[in-house]
């Protein structure tokens, strides 16, 4: 078993079931390295979203070991969870924007929660909205935004705090192919800055757009890892060259 300080995430024989139902995830083991780019694929119902929930600490596993940034998050005191969550950026499949806040306020939310002074966040948030092409929609409420615009607001909110790990659940599900490609380039840019990126998708075309990526394939709750490369990756980022 590894799970040293090098990985951003380490899963060992993790299982997850909701209530007394059958296991959604079974014996999932892998290591994620800093600065790497991962695609999480699998058919609908394979457990992609459940695995992401474990990664963004919204769910505790039924069994197994999970270490994030070198700490065992299963036994972690509740008071320390927010500190870990602030190191993560999450793009939810259903966006999860706060409906009564403007696009600007939604993007600013992680900074405000982290206690950033109001005068220090106006410029970064404005720049981020400009960068995702929504500067002109800064004051718009989510209900007036299109699916693609909501997606971009959600992505801007996830990445603005320069997270150590970005988790995106079907981030291109609501955008046209051109915007999907643009978003992939965004994730790559972020990845080049050192952020570990995990994108859950069932869009096989996306996988071809990021050359230096590792594919994690889930099949009925089990992680397909015939060579053990996910469980025992080389102790260095797979950033250059990748594992395909």
């Amino acid at each position: 078993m590894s799970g040293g300080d090098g990985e951003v995430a380490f899963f060992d024989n993790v299982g997850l079931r909701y209530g007394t139902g059958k296991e959604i995830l079974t014996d999932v083991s892998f290591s994620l390295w800093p600065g790497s780019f991962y695609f999480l694929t699998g058919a609908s119902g394979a457990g992609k979203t459940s695995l992401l929930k474990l990664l963004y600490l919204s769910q505790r596993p039924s069994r197994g070991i999970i270490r994030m940034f070198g700490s065992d998050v299963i036994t972690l005191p509740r008071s320390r969870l927010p500190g870990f969550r602030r190191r993560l950026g999450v793009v939810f499949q259903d966006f999860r924007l706060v409906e009564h806040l403007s696009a600007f306020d939604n993007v600013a939310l992680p900074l405000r929660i982290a206690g950033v002074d109001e005068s220090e966040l106006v410029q970064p948030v404005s720049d981020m909205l400009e960068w995702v092409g929504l500067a002109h929609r800064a004051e718009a409420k989510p209900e007036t935004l299109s699916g693609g615009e909501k997606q971009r607001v959600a992505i801007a909110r996830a990445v603005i705090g320069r997270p150590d790990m970005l988790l995106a659940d079907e981030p291109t599900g609501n955008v046209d192919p051109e915007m999907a490609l643009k978003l992939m380039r965004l994730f790559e840019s972020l990845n080049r800055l050192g952020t570990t990126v995990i994108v859950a998708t069932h869009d096989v075309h996306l996988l071809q757009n990021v050359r230096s990526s590792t594919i994690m394939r889930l099949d009925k709750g089990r992680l397909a890892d015939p060579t053990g490369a996910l469980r025992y990756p080389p102790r260095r980022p797979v950033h250059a060259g990748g594992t395909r």
Partner: protein
Amino acid sequence: MSTPPLTDAARSGQRSFEGAKAQALIPQARLAGPMPWVLAIMVALTVLAAGAGLSLGNLAGDARSELSGGATVQILQADPATRAEQAQAAQEALQAMAMVEQSRQIPQDELDALLEPWLGESGDAETVPVPALIDVRLEGRADDAAIERLRQRILQVAPDARVDAQSDWLQPVFSALTSLQYVALALVLLLAVTSAAAVFLAARSALGNNRETIEIVHLLGGTDGQIAQLFQRAILRDSMIGGGVGLLLGLAAVLGLGYQFAALDSGMIGGGGLDWLDWILIALIPVLGVVLAVATARFTVLSAVRRML
């Protein structure tokens, strides 16, 4: 595509999440609707109950201290001459006793005035013998031992005398006043519990209305304390409004009743006024109400969000 304009500000932020922007995050955290008025009514009733309890306490306390050193000597003799003779002897004996601070024989015209409501102006001491009365004030308390010593001395010079501690006459009244004080205290406690329950239900409702937002705040790294603070601030404002209005309503009722009782011009009821310490205690009721409301809201919110991961 250019490099995204990221900021490291989130990693160095030190301020807590507060102000109008924080409040806008959970717009329904306020105890919307009738809750501030419910709190106002609770505070008003508490002020009234506390005012009554304190007033009864003062009334009983004044009466007790006034009567604690008092005794009454009655000469129960039908013959006016013998009665006057024994009263004179008793008065002289009393004035010679060290334990007696002061004694005064009640003049016949005062006795006639006291009995006038029952006997009329034509009350005749010859036909309706009325005991001679001596009002005695002792140096110390008129306890059983003191009354017994007094009795033994008086009976030597006035065999028809009867000696009683004045407080004995009013013991049932003191017991009733004490019971009413306990009732007032129980009312104050019940109102506090009811207010806390009302805040608990309102906070639960506000939590339910904002559950989705709270989950998002959690997932973005918000702490339980930050979420609780959002609700606390809103409830602080509402309970301050309710407490202020309730205090004014309660004070109006207490003052109104005070003037009514003062108009009775009764000696005993006159001792039921409130002193400055009582007014401070009454003024503290809305403050304690606000503290109770905020603490209840914090407890409710924290216990609810702790069930979320």
